[in-house]
């Protein structure tokens, strides 16, 4: 079973058209293995992206150097998934 230890979901807010295109370019970088939960749409509209642990540092540095605002929407995805699973099992019992 695939686990998501250390994966974070970042909420990124593009401030202008340039930042929008920078974030959009991330979609094409396969090695980061990013999973866009909410895709790039417009300026000031949040983009939610699941970032694997191995790409976290690179992505955060990249966003910071581009002066792109982001926040951590989900700190550790696996923790949430574990809670979800435990809740399902408890309810089933």
């Amino acid at each position: 079973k695939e686990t998501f230890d250390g994966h974070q979901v970042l909420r990124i807010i593009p401030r202008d058209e340039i930042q929008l295109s920078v974030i959009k370019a991330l979609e094409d970088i396969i090695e980061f293995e990013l999973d866009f939960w909410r895709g790039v749409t417009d300026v000031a509209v949040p983009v939610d992206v699941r970032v694997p642990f191995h790409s976290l540092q690179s992505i955060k540095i990249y966003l910071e150097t581009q002066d792109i605002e982001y926040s951590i929407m989900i700190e550790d995805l696996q923790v949430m998934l574990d809670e979800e699973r435990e809740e399902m099992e408890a309810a089933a019992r």
Partner: protein
Amino acid sequence: QPRGTDSFDFSRYHTIDEIYSFQDMLVAENPNLVSKIVIGHSYEGRSLNVLKFSTGGTSRPAIWIDTGIHSREWVTQASGTWFAKKIVTDYGRDPALTNILDKMDIFLEIVTNPDGYHFTHNNNRMWRKTRKPNPGSRCDGVDPNRNWDAGFGGPGASGNPCSETYRGPKAHSESEVKSIVDFVKSHGNFKAFISIHSYSQMLLYPYGYTRTPVRDRDELHALAKKAITDLASLYGTRYKYGSIINTIYQASGGTIDWTYNQGIKYSYTFELRDTGRYGFVLPANQIIPTAEETWLALMAIMNHTVRNPY
């Protein structure tokens, strides 16, 4: 196992077997209202079940609702299950729903992507696509919401099998999509088609593949506004609304672009809760509130459809 749908726990997430069992129980309990149609099979051989809610008649105009085409969007399959129970509970009690079902049939596909849904429970909770292998690629699956013959292959879908928005080798290549296409065409009398996704709280109408507004843009826009107003009346959940391309992004090969081009005027797609705390991992205690508020919007669309024959 619950003995009947009355003891089914709608406030938690269920496996595919539990949902299949729920469907069979609902049919058994309501033989004069509900029947199950198997419109095809998934790549891994699972039944593509559609519940038909009908009070009789032949070739009646109909409304289609599907949930779970993106398998990880668990609140949609859970809401679909709740909708099914709501229909049988409210028929004969709620005058608006009774009026709809006295004139039209409702078809509900709760698990539109069953292989993906099973995979989310057993292998990868974040799986979104179908499960068919792609020859020559290490990556499996196709995005079934980019696989329809509506601007297929255009911008807003990927040709890379490893992408979450991989469109597939050709339009309707996925049995999960082709089965709906064949069913909708053979039925020939669908008047509304509502495809339900999560998350980000939006109600959208065509198009996604082109900026050209649909012919019925003004009516669809006004109806979307009414639907989200009704939705918000319950818990204050705020939705955006508009065409796909203007509200989310350009997306080619999408479900409701195809249905609209087939002549189904009231074609809508939802993005249910939430706004950005849990994403696809919406806690189970939000299933029923989500389903309840969405039901109000569905009723607005279904009511409008029955009152405005075309």
